[in-house]
């Protein structure tokens, strides 16, 4: 009898424990595997302390992040409550009913006027500028250059540069100045190279790398209202931009025609390259490793035109979860967007904010050597198409831009192919009438 009593008590304890466990509230966030995601996991502990709701950040390696997220959206119920989706995904998420619409809720939870207008436009709204929200800012990101300050400040280098080009060796403000400096530092015999731009063939590398040239030369991917592509992406200005981009490959380390986000980080860290293009969240690692040998500058302009690829991601809530989980997700996002939380968020490596008040503060500018350049870059952000068929458009541009840099096609041929195929995709998707 006594044994049975003990057994019953044991079972009751297990059941109580299970019930208590079942009542624990938590949200699951999916994001790519990088420093900001680790920072978000840390920040989530504060949210748990304040609310009792646990935050689990599931990190997926970048190369398979997109595929895993959309495969999961194919299920009746997603394994995540919040996905930190790339800016281009928002059209697909919004129109296919995957992302919860936040139009009514977001302005109540967050003061929209404090979100940088470019971040709100490209990270949160679909269609861009429509005022319909499907995401809230999480990681606002931009491209920028890191350079070898010690080389630029070397007296002998400065004198040699002035003698050759007739001006001071300073960070370039235009692409022509950039090319001169890249040419100047190109010394393969010394294993020293001028620059490394982005030309990776993975998910979106070469497309993101080409965009600053496309926009600075005065061209665009197409008409955002009519979705007309011909005459925009293959305009003479776009061809000239791609030709210029290709000409810079003369000054890159070996393999520069396929340089991606990670290899660019490597060629800078190995001390071989003067100027490297990448997204800002890669830079805390470089600063930690190279200290005051390095500094940063904004993506150069062509004349008065400057365009910088946006790289941020927003929080989107899955429609394929319960209402209760959606409410918890909203609670977390509202908490995250508070200024006091954003202040802590930007202290984590590679974590950036869209909050204009913080971006303009001296505190932010002085917190890291790249912050001031980052804040200045935001005003020039633009993005690739974020329509539902973005991925097909991206696959086409990746393929033909790669062929142009590889010399398989001329820049004009490559851009003509892109225009032709993009137009077909837009037509088929019913966007282009």
């Amino acid at each position, binding site marked *: 009898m006594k044994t049975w009593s003990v057994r019953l008590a044991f079972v009751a304890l297990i059941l109580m424990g299970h019930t208590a466990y079942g009542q624990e509230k938590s949200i699951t966030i999916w994001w790519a595997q990088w420093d900001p995601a680790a920072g978000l996991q840390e920040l989530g502990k504060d949210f748990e302390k304040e609310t009792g709701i646990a935050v689990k950040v599931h990190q997926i390696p970048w190369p398979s992040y997109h*595929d895993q997220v*959309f495969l999961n959206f194919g299920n009746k119920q997603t394994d995540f409550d919040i996905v930190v989706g790339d800016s281009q995904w928002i059209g697909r998420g919004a129109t296919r*009913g995957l992302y919860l619409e936040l139009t009514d809720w977001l302005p109540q939870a967050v003061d929209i006027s404090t979100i940088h207008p470019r971040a709100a436009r490209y990270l949160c709204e679909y269609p861009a500028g429509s005022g319909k929200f499907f995401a809230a800012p999480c990681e606002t990101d931009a491209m920028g250059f890191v350079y070898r300050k010690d080389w630029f400040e070397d007296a002998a280098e400065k004198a040699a540069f002035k003698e050759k080009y007739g001006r001071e060796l300073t960070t370039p403000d235009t692409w022509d100045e950039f090319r001169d400096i890249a040419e100047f530092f190109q010394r393969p015999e010394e294993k020293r190279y001028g620059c490394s731009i982005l030309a990776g063939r993975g998910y979106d590398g070469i497309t993101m790398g080409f965009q600053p040239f496309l926009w600075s030369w005065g061209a665009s991917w197409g008409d955002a209202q009519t979705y007309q592509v011909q005459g925009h992406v293959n305009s003479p200005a776009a061809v000239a931009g791609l030709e210029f981009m290709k000409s810079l490959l003369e000054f890159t380390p*070996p393999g520069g025609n396929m340089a991606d986000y990670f290899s660019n980080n490597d060629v800078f860290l*190995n001390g071989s390259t003067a100027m490297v293009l990448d997204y800002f969240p890669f830079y805390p690692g470089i600063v930690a490793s190279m200290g005051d040998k390095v500094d940063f500058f904004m993506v150069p302009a062509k004349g008065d035109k400057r365009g910088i690829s946006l790289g941020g991601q927003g929080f989107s809530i899955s429609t394929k979860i319960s209402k209760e989980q959606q409410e918890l997700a909203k609670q977390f996002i509202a908490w995250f967007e508070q200024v006091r939380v954003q202040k802590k968020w930007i202290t984590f490596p590679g974590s950036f904010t869209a909050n204009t008040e913080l971006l303009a503060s001296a505190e932010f500018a002085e917190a890291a050597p790249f912050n001031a350049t980052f804040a200045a870059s935001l005003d020039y952000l633009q993005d690739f198409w974020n329509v539902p068929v973005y*991925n*097909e458009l991206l696959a086409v541009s990746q393929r033909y831009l790669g062929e142009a840099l*590889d*010399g398989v096609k001329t820049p004009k041929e490559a851009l003509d192919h892109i225009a032709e195929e993009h137009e077909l995709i837009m037509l088929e998707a019913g966007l282009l009438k």
Partner: protein
Amino acid sequence: MVNSAKRGRRRDWMKYGFVGPALVLLIAMNVFPLIYSIFLSFTNADLIGGDYESRGGLNYKVVFLAAKYAGALRTTAVFVGLAVGIELVLGFALALALKGRLLLKPVVLTVLLVPMMLPQAVMGLYWKLVLNGNYGILNQILGALHLGQPQWITDPALKFFSILMIDVWMWTPFMMLIALASLNAIPNYIYEAAAIDRASKWTVFRRITLPMSAPLLGLAVLLRATDALKQFDLVMAVSGPNDATTQTLSALLYQVVFRDGKVGLGASYSYVVLVLVIALASIFIRYMAALQKKQKEAPA
């Protein structure tokens, strides 16, 4: 009489009872998806679900007209032809070298077999490091020897051949193994008879070794060709699924179905490829059958 009929009926039910579960599984796992994917190939079905509608033959039209589909088919054909050809020649040569008595033969054989026992995806990533133009060990060795340092995985003229080279490194041992088995199966007395007839080494190779090992080698070619046709892991690891110069059928299918989410279009492409593969395999199998028949009919 009645009892015997009952027993017969019971035996019939038992037969169905034993075969039934396997049959149901086969229908559920193979036959149904096959038929369902034929249906999907005429629709605009999307990976993330939702409603879809018929597109008629539009998917098939796209497959036949868009250059990238023919491009991937061409890349795969060249890959299969070169990979299987090189592996066959190298594997057969190695088998000939290892056929006789050799010091430490078991050790040599084991070492040679290691590459094919390793996972392709892991080997792809490993070779990507080895072949890296800037810090890869191969270029470091070439540099130390004052030789050129090609950009193995970024140079458009080389990246396809780099993947081919990795495949050859991995699968030559497989060809060698089957070739060695076929060589060992040739009876010694035939070689002794040839020696009595004073046949030259070349004649022995051409008239005895090659024709008698041909059936097994043919099987090896068929197995390897089928496998190479599905080449995916190495392409994904070395250059990704969307590089025009290295995009094989499987890589393109991955791109279409899993990146673009176009299940219908992917299904139609798969069926076009399936028809082509069945046609080629049928021709090859008939050729092999004819070869075997000819051998059986040849005078001893």
